């Protein structure tokens, strides 16, 4: 295959995890960034553009963080391959910037020596020099430069113009030449440790300097009793915010969708084109974009917790619990992300270097209740669960049911992980070895850039697969048109109606009628589409905005309580959306695991619905 490579010089940022590399990348490139994947692997590839003093543009690549050039995860392999010039479709960088954490020089220097040996032109960026100075570690860049035989500049990625020394270094022509071979440095890794030790000794940097502030915070956050309590409180606040803060912007988006639908309806004459625009596109896409506020809020908290250094502590606290079902604390972060959407969660599993842990995490990620399932829950709960206060007015029955549904997903995931551990092949030893970085104040700029990238990924999905499926569903539900004089809603005569009646045979034992069965089909594309599909199927004249509001009373009349509960149970385990299956296929490199995931989730959902439906019927619901 031919890969076209853009013109211009390429600079790659290399560094240990948590060295402030991405913050430096953001500082250098600002908003001129492109996020994609490396060819053939799903490792996130961040490229940005940098304008040099002479006006020339260069491309800047933010390589995944690594401790050494011996890769132990797919992320780290990309870094090694790109630097060696082996990566598919990637040009070998013209210059490597080794980002070195000044507060952790020893480990960083090992990587610098390895990169230097590759013979690639190299500049060392001494990052977080301000923080090191505050801890009493003063590093002389000139002295370090003499030791390494490489240019060394100080950077403070979290400060405006904290990158000026590095920018200036890019303008020096000699810096783009490969480093000279020198006898003072070892030519294999065996000697690296001794060399680093001597360098640090000569620079008088070989004493342990504890970071007291971080240790003081850890005394609370990792306290055996206070720590878990604090974690529970943090998670509770995050979920509270996801639901309450999102209310207003979601209302605004719904109102805007309704206004747009009305405006378009008023300007076009009735016909297939107006129907496609209003019933198909505006209602369908509006129904999905309405979740954007919740996704933004959830990712905001995840980014802040990640940047501050708290997330690895949460993983530390949960390692014991996760270990009891055969996972490690490292699985916590991917699973937390899955509450927003399983796709970023599945992608985040790449940071787990044990292949088995990674696979199990990917397989149970779809059981975390993603935000796309919320509208379905919201519709059914408001239609069937009475508004009633319980526990002396402190709790609300509807909220309690929602909490129960979330818990059912988590417990289901733990149970599945336990079953895989119990009956899986062989006993494996799992690795933790996770860095607990020092606490930082998250910077507004980095959080905003991170959020912007998540929003764009979501919007691209809306513009891609969801758009196509919305139009497809509109077509299937509108054609063929009913013969003249036919009775009942038009959809009963359409392709969708026919398909729904076939599916109803399969779903009748768990209490689903044909309307639900047909709505489940587009729900595979994106679960949130179920609500707008039910709206379409029930042949409402309403537009997407008030579909849920109008649909509520209709289904409350036409469905039994047992059917509603059965559908809720179905969505706890619901076979995940196609985009999730596609993500699993990409991450596991084949059809085996997406098929297994689809199969076991379908079986679990059917079983849960069957039990719920039959129990509810027996109890007279």
């Amino acid at each position, binding site marked *: 295959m031919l890969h076209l490579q853009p013109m211009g010089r390429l600079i790659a940022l290399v560094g240990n995890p948590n060295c402030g590399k991405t913050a430096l990348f953001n500082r250098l490139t600002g908003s001129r960034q492109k996020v994609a994947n490396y060819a053939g692997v799903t490792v996130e590839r961040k490229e940005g553009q940098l304008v040099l003093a002479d006006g020339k543009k260069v491309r800047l690549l933010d390589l995944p963080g690594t401790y050494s050039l*011996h890769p132990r995860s797919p992320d780290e392999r990309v870094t090694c391959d790109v630097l060696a010039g082996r990566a598919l479709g990637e040009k070998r960088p013209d210059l490597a910037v080794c980002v070195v954490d000044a507060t952790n020089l020893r480990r960083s220097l090992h990587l610098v020596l390895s990169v230097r040996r590759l013979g690639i032109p190299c500049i060392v960026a001494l990052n977080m020099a301000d923080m090191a100075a505050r801890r009493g570690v003063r590093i002389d860049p000139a002295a370090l430069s003499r030791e390494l035989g490489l240019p060394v500049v100080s950077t403070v990625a979290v400060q405006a113009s904290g990158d000026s020394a590095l920018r200036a270094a890019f303008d020096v022509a000699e810096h783009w030449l490969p480093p000279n071979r020198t006898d003072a440095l070892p030519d294999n890794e065996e000697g690296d440790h001794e060399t680093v030790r001597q360098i640090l000794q000569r620079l008088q940097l070989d004493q342990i300097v504890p970071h007291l502030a971080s240790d003081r915070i850890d005394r609370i956050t990792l306290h055996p009793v206070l720590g878990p309590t604090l974690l529970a409180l943090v998670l509770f606040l995050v979920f509270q915010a996801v639901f309450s803060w999102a209310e207003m912007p979601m209302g605004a988006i719904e109102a805007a969708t309704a206004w747009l639908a009305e405006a378009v309806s008023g300007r076009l004459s009735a016909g297939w084109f107006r129907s496609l625009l209003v019933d198909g596109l505006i209602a369908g896409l509006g129904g999905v974009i309405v979740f954007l506020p919740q996704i933004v809020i959830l990712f905001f908290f995840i980014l802040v917790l990640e940047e501050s250094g708290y997330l690895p502590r949460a993983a530390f606290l949960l390692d014991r619990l996760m270990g009891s079902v055969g996972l490690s604390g490292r699985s916590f972060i991917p699973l937390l992300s899955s509450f927003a959407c399983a796709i970023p969660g599945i992608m985040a599993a790449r940071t787990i270097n044990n292949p088995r842990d990674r696979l199990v995490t990917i397989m149970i990620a779809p059981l975390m209740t993603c935000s796309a399932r919320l509208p379905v829950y919201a519709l059914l709960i408001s239609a069937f669960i009475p508004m009633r206060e319980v526990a002396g007015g402190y709790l609300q029955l509807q909220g309690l049911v929602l909490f129960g549904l979330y818990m059912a997903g988590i417990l289901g995931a733990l149970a599945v992980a336990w079953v895989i551990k119990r009956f899986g092949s062989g006993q494996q030893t799992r690795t933790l070895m996770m860095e607990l970085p020092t606490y930082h104040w998250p910077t507004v700029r980095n959080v905003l850039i991170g959020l912007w990238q998540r929003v764009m990924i979501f919007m691209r999905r809306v513009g891609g697969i969801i758009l196509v499926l919305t139009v497809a569903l509109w077509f299937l539900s509108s054609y063929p048109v009913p013969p003249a004089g036919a009775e009942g809603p038009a959809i009963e005569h359409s392709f969708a109606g026919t398909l729904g009646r076939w599916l109803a045979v399969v779903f009748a034992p768990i209490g689903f009628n044909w309307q639900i069965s047909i709505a489940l089909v587009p729900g595979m594309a994106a679960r949130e589409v179920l609500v707008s599909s039910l709206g379409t199927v029930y042949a409402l004249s309403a537009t997407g905005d008030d579909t849920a509001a109008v649909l509520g009373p209709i289904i409350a009349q036409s469905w039994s309580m047992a059917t509603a509960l059965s559908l809720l149970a179905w969505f706890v385990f619901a076979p995940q959306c196609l985009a999730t299956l596609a993500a699993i296929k990409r991450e596991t490199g084949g059809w085996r695991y997406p098929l297994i995931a689809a199969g076991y989730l379908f079986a679990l959902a059917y079983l849960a619905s069957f039990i719920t439906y039959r129990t509810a019927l027996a109890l007279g619901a």
Partner: protein
Amino acid sequence: MKDNVEVGLHQVPIGYPMTVRSVVESSEAPEWAGWLREIGFYPGERVVLMNRGFLGGDPLMVRIGMSTFALRAAEAACVRVVATQPGLQP
């Protein structure tokens, strides 16, 4: 703790300065030794056990050089340490 007695890092008391003697291969996970070296566990390095997980068990919080890592007891057991003697350079 007696000086000069080599023990596994998982057995040391909290807050006691130790020096790494060696990193040994674990029979169940031979790859750990290399990974531990990568994150900074080399002979001569100073290391302190900072904290233990819930009820004094897994995982352990370990300070090596200037970084902090969460290690399982089984992982920490690969790191053989002795008490650091004041004033003595490794």
